[in-house]
């Protein structure tokens, strides 16, 4: 990996200064990486949801019943609760991104406050969904 666009041989022998290892986590940075990670989780979750639908469509009543039984295991329940939270966070943060594209909430205060709000709302909505 060549640091900072420098392609000379000399530059490649030089060390690269530490980055992710030493940078202090900023809240806006946390909300941003969370958007990525929740997106990944949803993508993986969609595969399992599709598997359920396929089971429903082709596999017959027995297999579908088995699938449903396995899916009711507490482990999968936890995965499902995380899935809905990811979906809510990703969606609400997506709205935050849309607002940013109009040029608002781009001050430090606005960006931080909206990040906290999105996180809080995603937790509240997720709790409401599951109780």
């Amino acid at each position: 990996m060549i640091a900072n666009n420098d392609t000379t041989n000399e530059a490649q022998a030089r060390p690269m200064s530490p980055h992710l290892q030493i940078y202090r986590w900023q809240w806006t940075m946390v909300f941003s990486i969370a958007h990525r990670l929740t997106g990944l989780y949803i993508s993986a979750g969609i595969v399992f949801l599709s598997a359920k639908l396929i089971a429903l469509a082709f596999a017959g009543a027995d297999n579908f019943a088995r699938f449903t039984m396995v899916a009711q295991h507490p482990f999968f329940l936890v995965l499902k609760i995380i899935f809905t939270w990811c979906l809510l966070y990703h969606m609400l943060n997506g709205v935050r991104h849309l607002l940013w594209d109009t040029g608002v909430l781009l001050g430090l205060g606005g960006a931080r406050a909206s990040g906290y709000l999105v996180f809080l709302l995603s937790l509240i909505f997720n709790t409401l969904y599951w109780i």
Partner: protein
Amino acid sequence: MAQLFLPANSRIKRGKHWALPTTSSAKRVRVKDFKVYRWNGVKGERPRLDRYKLDLNSCGPMVLDGLIAIKNKIDSTLTFRRSCREGVCGSCAMNIDGTNTLACTKPMASVRGSIKVYPLPHCSVIKDLVANLDGSYRQLATIEPWLQAATEVGKGKGKDKSKGMRERKQTPQARAALDGSYECILCFCCSTSCPSYWWNPDKYLGPAVLLQAYRWLMDSRDGAEQKRLRALADPFKLYRCHTIMNCTNACPKGLNPAKAIAEIKKMVAKKPKDTLQGYL
């Protein structure tokens, strides 16, 4: 592709411990611990983290004062850039206590515990705290950071070329549109704080350069808006910004590169598609 870990030659090893210099004059001693990134320029040798102890009563209040005191009293081989010592030159940009800032405007008292000092992140290191910013400077040149007027208003007549020359006037409102971007001192604290720039330093222009691009787009005297936007409308140059906002968090001048980038995106979006060839 993002490389999250440092290459083998860049991993930091334990460094030297430098003792507190014995001073006869100071009666009360306020000791602060410094941990400073060192690389002496010998190829193949790994960087190390040296520890210094410094009496805060023996030097000025800023981190730069501390570094200068270390260089003068403890270890003269410590290398760093500095010039104005008042936040207008941008030379002493470095990573202090985990965030990029200017050493000359960062009070040592604002850091709890030991003061960790690294060069600007994800740069090739020239020596100790001196990061190589050549790539960023080259990127700055690509946005043509100078006035490109549509009309020639200042052409002189006859032998004396200055005769008939006029200044390009701006209304106070048009001048105010440059507030928040012209103040940039190009210290590159923002660009080197940006994870997007870490992973694509060769293709993404980075917040500092984009803030400058915005500065010229907003200049009422500049007539090259169309050309400038066309050059910026690129999936990497502009759109690698994901509004992580480390830039705005880091800026020692209190500017907002993230906002400037969002405004450029809006300007691009407002242009008819056929006028911006290529990506859009």
